[in-house]
């Protein structure tokens, strides 16, 4: 059951400072309203994974490992491989992250990343079918949050994308219906590059790439996923506040512009 979360331990003074700054169109770290923090993307850091990446966004750190294994297709899509996204908010990342099965925040985060990838058809699942209705490749995207300083949605999706773009899966041949894996690998079929842009509503304004303090002072959150052709492919509002429709439309416009720049950074790092 979903319940109103406890307000964070952040001092009221600090929250007031964030809101006070926002009323003057300013931010704690001096960024412009649509500026992102410094992004660092490393790929190929886990040798045993089929693809991996670590994204550092300011002080937020997220690692993604992709594993590709043989499995069964869903009955309604017998000719397609399977994409599955899971998020672990590891207890080492933040004092209030706890061990145990994923809570609603981890599930929501995983489902937003999944939605971005799935709806933009980032992974060409039709190329991951081995024998229709029987054997397909399953792409497991496992997201490990390592350090939490806000905007986990964007950091996680960028890391997932970088890991997939540099990911490889085994070449194989079919002999008498048997799947025989070769020693060689081929790149994962990646067709689209969805880039989410997340905003926090702080006071009366929207700020992009909120840091944790901004997230704790925000009333609502909005994520807009943009695909490589500037189409909106995913969206999610979060938080217990409200937005107005002009605000949302303006956010979509900003997201389209911002996503191009961010996509460039991700593509460059995933060559």
């Amino acid at each position: 059951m979903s319940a109103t979360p406890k307000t964070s331990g952040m001092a009221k003074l600090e929250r007031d400072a964030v809101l006070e700054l926002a009323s003057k169109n300013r931010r704690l770290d001096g960024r412009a309203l649509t500026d992102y923090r410094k992004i660092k993307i490393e790929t190929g850091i886990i040798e045993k994974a089929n693809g991996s990446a670590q994204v550092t966004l300011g002080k937020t750190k997220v690692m993604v490992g992709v594993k590709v294994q043989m499995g069964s297709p869903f009955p309604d899509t017998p000719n397609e491989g399977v994409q599955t996204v899971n998020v672990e908010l590891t207890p080492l990342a933040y004092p209030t992250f706890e061990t145990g099965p994923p809570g609603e925040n981890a599930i929501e985060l995983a489902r937003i990343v999944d939605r971005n990838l799935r709806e933009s058809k980032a992974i060409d699942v039709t190329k991951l079918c081995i024998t229709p209705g029987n054997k397909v490749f399953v792409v497991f995207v496992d997201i490990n949050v390592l350090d939490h300083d806000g905007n986990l949605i964007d950091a996680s999706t960028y890391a997932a994308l970088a890991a997939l773009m540099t990911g490889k899966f085994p070449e194989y041949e079919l002999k008498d219906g048997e799947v025989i894996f070769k020693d060689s690998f081929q790149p994962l079929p990646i067709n689209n590059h969805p880039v989410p842009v997340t905003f926090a509503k702080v006071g009366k304004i929207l700020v992009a790439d909120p840091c944790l303090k901004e997230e704790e002072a925000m009333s609502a959150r909005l994520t807009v996923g943009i695909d490589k052709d500037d189409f909106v492919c995913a969206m999610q509002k979060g938080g217990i506040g409200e937005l107005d429709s002009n605000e949302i439309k303006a956010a979509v416009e900003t997201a389209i512009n911002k996503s191009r720049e961010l996509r460039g950074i991700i593509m460059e790092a995933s060559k």
Partner: protein
Amino acid sequence: MSKEKAPERLIDDSGLRIDGRRPEDLRPIKLEVGVLENADGSAFIQQGKNKILVGVFGPREIHPKHMVLPDRAVIRCRYRMAPFSTEERKNPAPSRREIEISKVIREALEPAVMSEYYPRTVIDIFIEALQCDGGTRCAGIVAASLALADAGISMKELVSACSAGKVGGQVVVDLCDLEDKYGEADLPVALMPNLSAVTLIQMDGKLSREEFEKALDMASEACRQIRNFQAEALRHKYQGMVDTEEPPATGEASK
């Protein structure tokens, strides 16, 4: 076990949808307030083939105690699909989808509820989707907002909700299950119409910026229509009571 087939076309030559609606048409909606005996507030919504029942308890004492908030009520929400609500039986264990929807529905209702009036209590909202045909999170919000009002909980405004999306190249409102599955995009929106405040927005699929703006506007307009139905449903239950100056003749306490 019936196996559904993908429809050949979602929009026919005369521009009508698979169930004969025009792009801006809602499915028939039936709303009923106060349908449960034990809940403090309840409502039932039928929208197309959707049948959803909502019960609200509270404000009441909170358990476990450590969840208490000193300055406001905690709002808890559970969205659940009945195992028999879908074509294939749904496993009764809560799915990841249900967990996410419970969260976004709670967040859609929170801005409306004046929770600061009820410190140290909990308001529980239980949404049971008995039959699902697309747009259940929106229908659930519409009924939940009525059930909250029926429980006598102070609210800034009713929350209305409706999805828009793109189907067969057309931007349409209130997608049914087939349109949701085989259409190009789905955009559920919840709105407090008289405050012009969007309290839920999600999207999946593919929309250009122009299409998105059109869909958002159409969904908002649909929400405004639904709000009228909601007000009517509340009036239907309560107007008699409000207008009656004399106490009921039998002396029987009516709920």
